[in-house]
């Protein structure tokens, strides 16, 4: 299969675009010399760098997007099967790339507020996304490993980017140590898999695993665990809340949406490509992981006093819920999972974007008490925040509502009513957790406090997120121009191929 495919550089395009963008920013930043923080020059420079990053990412997204259209050569492979640009890879590139753009525009003003240097920040961010692009398009487990490492190493640095703050340093260290642990698991799994099957490219590993053998299964289980660490899947999640709390909020948004989202997409790729068909050993494991994630995530979210931690813990529950698609294992479930990922990504970007928007004048607004009275002082922002949170909680009329309904419907249709019940109980707990923030914003008064005016770029990103959430909440299955199917069916087909 692999030798027959024509060689093409197309699968490497997104990663190349992001990497070139990173280099470009590095060059621009160096050429511009030093500028005093908070000067107009610095502001303008930040804007130019953000634009350059956006341009690079949009190029990457476009190069992925062309593969989504019907008639495109969806199986284009480069250096035999090591990178492939199929439907899933293209969709992953689009999802990660677009959320990367949003993360860039959320950062640009916030970096100024924190007096951080935009140049290095954007370079690291783009390099991390380049790694994500490699990992989601990988057709070979080693390439996948390299991509993942390239994705998470800059993320570790980003977590510690606010280097004068101890919490940021702590976040970086935790992120690095536990990330290294995950890499070790992943490498060990690769070694076992190679030992059992003699191959590391996805197709051969799958064929080798189909013959049975505990060693290969164990290897793949370790690979799943290794990717699970990066994706924040319980019980490999411990780093996520700490890092999310300690890192600068823009990094929190980037890590929790782009990095963890991409890792989840990589896991999806592994499951679809590598797992033997009708496998009865590994899939039930995902049911267990899902239950653990939903239980731990929503229960811990309930008791958090810090909104960034709350969103991180509830995000672990969301990741657990998405794992249910692996148990159901059909086109409807995978389509719903991708829709869920999109909905949660947009809503999380919005919610964390609001947290960083409210922070201004050097004061972080991240403890629950800090939100008291914001409903009165800034009703518009508070309403937007509420919208993002009800989307995360899965109430109508938001994308989150349909995400939950569609995914659970697929799970129940596959015969797993018990898992759906667990997910729904978790969602009630999460609903309570999320609604503590609006309760604080609207129902408690606080002495007048200084709340920063949102910058234009922040406001634009937040409004865009809100529009997407409401649009997908009213029309969750839009017929995209040029496609024969609605969005939901398209997403399902991207993962499992045409029915």
């Amino acid at each position, binding site marked *: 299969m692999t030798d027959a495919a024509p060689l093409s550089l197309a699968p490497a395009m997104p990663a190349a675009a992001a990497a070139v963008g990173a280099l470009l920013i590095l060059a621009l930043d160096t050429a511009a010399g030093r500028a005093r923080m908070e000067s107009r020059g610095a502001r303008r420079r930040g804007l130019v760098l953000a634009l350059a990053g956006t341009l690079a990412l949009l190029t990457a997204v476009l190069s992925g997007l062309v593969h989504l259209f019907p008639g495109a050569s969806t199986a284009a492979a480069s250096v035999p099967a090591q990178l492939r640009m199929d439907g899933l890879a293209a969709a992953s590139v689009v999802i990660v790339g677009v959320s990367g753009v949003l993360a860039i525009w959320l950062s640009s003003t916030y970096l100024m507020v924190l007096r951080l240097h935009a140049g290095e920040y954007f370079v690291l961010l783009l390099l991390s996304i380049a790694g994500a692009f490699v990992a989601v398009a990988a057709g070979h487990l080693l390439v996948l490993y390299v991509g993942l490492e390239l994705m998470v190493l800059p993320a570790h640095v980003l977590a510690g980017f606010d280097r004068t703050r101890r919490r940021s340093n702590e976040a970086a260290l935790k992120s690095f140590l536990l990330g290294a642990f995950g890499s070790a698991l992943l490498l060990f799994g690769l070694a076992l898999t190679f030992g059992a099957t003699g191959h590391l490219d996805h197709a051969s590993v799958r064929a080798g695993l189909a013959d049975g053998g505990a060693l290969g299964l164990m290897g793949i289980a370790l690979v799943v665990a290794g990717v699970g660490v990066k994706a924040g899947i319980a019980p490999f999640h411990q780093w996520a809340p700490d890092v999310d709390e300690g890192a600068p909020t823009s990094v929190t948004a980037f890590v929790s949406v782009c990095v963890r989202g991409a890792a989840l997409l990589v896991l999806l790729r592994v499951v679809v490509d590598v797992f033997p068909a009708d496998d009865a050993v590994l899939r039930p494991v995902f049911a267990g992981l899902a239950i653990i994630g939903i239980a731990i995530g929503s229960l811990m979210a309930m008791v958090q006093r810090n909104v960034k931690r709350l969103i991180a813990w509830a995000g672990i529950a969301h990741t657990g819920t998405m794992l249910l698609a692996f148990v159901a294992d059909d086109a*409807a479930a995978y*389509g719903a999972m991708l829709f869920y990922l999109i909905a949660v990504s947009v809503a999380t970007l919005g919610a964390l974007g609001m947290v960083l928007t409210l922070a201004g004048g050097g004061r972080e607004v991240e403890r629950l008490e800090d939100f008291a009275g914001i409903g*009165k002082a800034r*009703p*518009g922002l508070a309403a937007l925040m*509420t919208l993002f949170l*009800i989307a995360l909680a899965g*109430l*109508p*009329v938001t994308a989150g*509502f*349909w995400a939950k*309904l*569609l995914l*659970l*419907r697929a799970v*129940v*249709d596959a015969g797993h*009513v018990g898992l*759906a*019940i667990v997910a*729904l*109980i978790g*969602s*009630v707990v999460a*609903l*309570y957790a999320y*609604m*503590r923030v*609006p*309760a604080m914003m*609207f*129902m*408690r008064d606080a002495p007048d406090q200084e709340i920063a005016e949102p910058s234009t770029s922040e406001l634009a990103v937040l409004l865009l997120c809100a529009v997407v959430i409401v649009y997908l909440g009213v029309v*969750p*299955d839009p017929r995209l121009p040029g496609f024969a199917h*609605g969005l*939901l*069916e398209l997403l399902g087909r991207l993962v499992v191929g045409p029915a």
Partner: protein
Amino acid sequence: MSLNFFDPEHALRWLIFLPAATALALLGCNALVAALFRAPGLSDRIWRAAGLGASVLTFWVAAWVVLGGFDPEHIGFQFVEYAPWIPSAGASWFVGVDGISLFMVVLTTALVPLTLLAVWNRVDRSLRSFVFYVLVLESGLLGVFLAMNAALFFMAWQATFLPIFFLIGIWGGSRRVRAATRFLVAWGLASALLLVALLAVGGGGEGVIQFDMVTPPGGSGPGLLEAGLPGGELGWLGRIDQAWLFVALLGAFGLVVPIVPLHGWLLDAESEAPMSAMTLLTAVGLKMGTYGILRFALPLCPDAVSEWSAMLCGLALAGIVYASLLAAAQTDLRRLVAWWTVAQLGFVLLGTFSLDPVGLTGGVVAMLSHGLTSAALLFLVGAIADRRGSYEIAALGGLARPMPVFAALLGVAMLSAMGTPLLSGFVGDILILLAGFGVGSTIGAFALLGWVLGAGCLVWAYRRIALGPVENPENRGLIDLGWRERGIVLTLLLPILWIGLHPNPVLRRVEPSVLELMRQMDERRVVAPIAPIEDAARHAPVEPRERVEEPA
């Protein structure tokens, strides 16, 4: 008045969207004004007037178009609208009204303008968001009562959460956040159970996704309430499955009604909620539960319900007696109304679970009557609280002297509440009692006992509030109800009196739908039907007819 400016066939979409669309339009204009003129947005007066106008218009659509155009002879749903929406989720825009939902719709649309009038200038903070939440809540409630697609129903169901949450949490009493949170968790749990049940039953197997409740016009496949019909392709659930399904549905709707062991959140909410939210929640919101039982639990689980009928009647009775006894012990007017509500909704459940057309009809009438009566009672309680700043019964006494109109109106409302003949409360209660005696004399006797207990506790409460000498000097100078307050309460008391004197127009519209409901249950029964239904069929023969007819 002419209706030519829109097609009356589409009345229901106007009903559902008019309030929410007004709310969103107001919000948009507010933001626009704030952005363009650097003003603080539209004035409170505009919000209030627009909100009232929209809700009155909604009521007008409900009263004249729906009530006037409703054909009592027609079996099945009327004013049906259908459009596919999201096939992969089984969701469609499918709405219709029948005799069971008709009066819930009219009640909802009537109470919203009255509520807005009642709080006219008494909202102490942020009137604008108050109007916004009330209008959104109205749309959600109407969506629940009119949805003919389970996904749409669930969406509308969840859309009612946030408005009530904020109404309690922002304008409530000192422990409002706790009450709002408890409300949210209880209703969230209910919706989780509901979603599991709907997903389990709506899957249909083999990729057939069916959330439409009956076959839509131009659509395909038997609806959720029709699967297992002689002509249908799908068999119906076995008895074990039905039992689980019923437990889930009973839990979901029972949390909202609330059935007695699940009632904790209601007492919290009623003690803390502002009177406006409390009126809408008590008079209409709780009916989502009883309505859901009628609409989903009965036809989806006919065997489970009829097998457990006696047990369920016992559960309802236990609730009635327990709540009546506790109502007698209350010292707070709001909690008195709350416990009376629990008892009264116990009656509705008793009528429902008697599985007797008489009892079911009585249940629907009792839902309507409770809505009107509880709203009247709560407005009166609110009027007292406005004057005295307290809900303590002990602080009152002898109010008939300073406030004769108040005392008279409260007397009529309480008489209706205790089920006195010639008032609407009697119609529902007597039908339910008859059905109760039909099920078994013990059940009937206990229902009678609950009725007497409830009446006794209300009489006693009335005596403590209105009769006797004025002992508390603070009660001496109280001002009687103003014209606005009198108007609101009279608007509610007139239909109470009218239904009590002449219940036929209501019964005539409810009964065919109840019989249709029994037929739906009957046709999908796995085991043989039980006796009362055969009796019903004998008394009121139901000719074979089309399941859903095109709206005329």
